[in-house]
């Protein structure tokens, strides 16, 4: 980019008088042309002086050689205060002057022009005027720089706009924090504040929140029923956000209420299926997968019996006192809420002293592992289409095998560590609930 040459004279239009005015009595169009021509003739000098922007020309040493009325008015200076007396940088604030020296002038020397730089001018009365400044070096016919032309735009509106933008951004940040607090609070209301203390049982649970912006759909609970029995459930509502939270809430209260009338796990899930199916059908179906368990103490041999019913939920893991670990399948169980007559599968096992049962949602097994090294998985990660490796059911089974025999709190602790290791690969909420029958004190001495 080079500056303009001296042959490029200003005021050109005034030297080419229009011919419209030389045909008097020619009617309307000629008169209009005359007015237009007068506008042109009048405009060059007047436009310079009273343009809606400031103009100034300075010598190469910085002294101001020419300045328009608009800029003088903005600054509150008389022309004689300025011409030949001060340089452009004298009009700047202290910070602006420094920037002018270190950046503006060197850039102008290198490129021949500098565009749209935000600076602040200091007016005669000490007030500051935010401006946008553009300068060009004007060169002579031999390419030697002659002077610097500068235009100055009033940026008060822009400054106000920027301030407004900043304010709006702060407001948005505050709203986002509020939303996150709301989501966290809502999430907490969907989970028991603390697990019930079950005599003769060690229980532990953990809820991993994948997103602070959206409420997830996982849930669990453990609560007393009649005759020394206990109910427990863990599940996963499809989707995220407020709509999913509403289903979670309905699911949770339905399960607890249904268990009071008939604690049989199959009956409880049938009840839930009917309630959800009536509430949500048609084009916006909602479902959940859930395991419901009924725990009854085994008074003769110690420990508990547990009957687990599953509606399409991943199988529980049973880690025995002797270290053997297996899935507790409930084949054929169907998800709850969308099929009027969903099949619910049940199984019953005895939890002997030393045994641990783990319920989980698929946020853990569906976690991505390709972005994380050293997950503790030994290559069993499931592979979905597109080569996207997931942690997988087999890896979890191996993980449990390595833990057994264990306790509820150790199991949940290990899963928390595993979730930490998987890190951002866990992109869905995960709930885990473990129950363990402690060995009697004499057993610990063996």
């Amino acid at each position, binding site marked *: 980019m080079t500056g303009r040459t001296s042959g490029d004279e200003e005021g050109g239009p005034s030297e080419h008088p229009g011919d419209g005015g030389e045909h008097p009595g020619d009617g309307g169009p000629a008169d209009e042309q005359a007015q237009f021509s007068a506008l042109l003739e009048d405009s060059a000098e007047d436009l310079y002086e009273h343009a809606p922007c400031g103009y100034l020309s300075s010598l190469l040493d910085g002294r101001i050689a020419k300045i328009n009325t608009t800029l003088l008015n903005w600054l509150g200076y008389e022309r004689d205060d300025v011409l030949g007396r001060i340089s452009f940088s004298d009009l700047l604030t202290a910070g602006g002057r420094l920037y002018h020296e270190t950046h503006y002038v060197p850039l102008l020397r290198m490129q021949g022009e500098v565009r749209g730089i935000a600076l602040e001018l200091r007016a005669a009365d000490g007030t500051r005027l935010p401006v946008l400044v553009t300068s060009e070096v004007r060169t002579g016919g031999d390419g030697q720089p002659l002077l610097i032309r500068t235009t100055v735009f009033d940026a008060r509106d822009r400054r106000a706009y920027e301030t407004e933008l900043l304010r709006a951004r702060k407001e948005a940040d505050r709203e986002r924090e509020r939303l996150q607090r709301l989501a966290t609070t809502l999430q907490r209301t969907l989970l028991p504040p603390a697990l019930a203390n079950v005599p003769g049982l060690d229980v532990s649970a953990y809820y991993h929140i994948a997103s602070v912006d959206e409420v997830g*759909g996982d849930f669990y609970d453990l609560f007393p029923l009649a005759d020394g029995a206990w109910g427990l459930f863990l599940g*996963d509502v*499809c*989707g*995220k956000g407020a709509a999913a939270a509403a289903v979670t809430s309905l699911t949770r209260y339905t399960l607890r209420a249904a268990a009071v009338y008939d604690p049989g796990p199959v009956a409880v899930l049938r009840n839930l299926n009917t309630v959800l199916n009536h509430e949500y*059908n*048609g*084009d*916006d*179906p*909602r*479902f959940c*997968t859930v395991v419901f368990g009924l725990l009854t103490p085994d008074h003769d041999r110690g420990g508990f019996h547990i009957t687990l019913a599953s*509606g*399409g*939920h*991943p199988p529980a893991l049973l880690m025995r006192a002797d270290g053997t670990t297996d899935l507790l399948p409930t084949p*054929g*169980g*169907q*998800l709850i809420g*969308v*099929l009027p007559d*969903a*099949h619910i599968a049940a199984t019953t096992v005895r939890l002997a002293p030393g045994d641990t049962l783990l319920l989980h949602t698929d946020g853990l097994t*569906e976690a991505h592992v390709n972005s994380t090294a050293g997950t503790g998985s030994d290559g069993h990660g*499931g*592979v*979905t*289409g*597109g080569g*996207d490796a997931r942690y997988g059911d087999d890896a979890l089974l191996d993980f449990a095998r390595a833990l057994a025999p264990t306790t509820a709190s150790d199991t949940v602790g290990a899963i928390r560590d595993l979730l930490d290791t998987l890190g951002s690969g866990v992109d*869905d909420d995960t709930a885990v609930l473990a129950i363990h029958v402690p060995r009697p004190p004499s057993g610990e001495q063996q």
Partner: protein
Amino acid sequence: MTQPPLTLRIRTAPAGAVVELAGELDHQTAPGVRAALPGLELLPGQQLVLDLGGVEFCDSSGITVLIAARNHALAAGAGIALAAVPEHVSRIFRVVGLDQVFPAHPTARAAEAAWRSTAS
């Protein structure tokens, strides 16, 4: 953005509409598929085929769309079948017990042939 996360193509076959889904079927893309369902023309006795051959990912929200499609077909007096279900989707189907609800065929053509043999 290189490719849209999910593409949906609808074609009409003698047996009924065939919906081809390709990409990621999740809670971002599910509403778009759900919105397309009311536009599907299905006559009583026809069969809606969902061709899942190109589905790379399907989560619980994706499952709800398949169920919504089933509800839509049943409401029209039509049947529903899946074609070319990828292994990662059929695994989820087995866990949630939907394999008992959705007949599955290796291809859309096979689904149509199965419909012909039951219709005749």
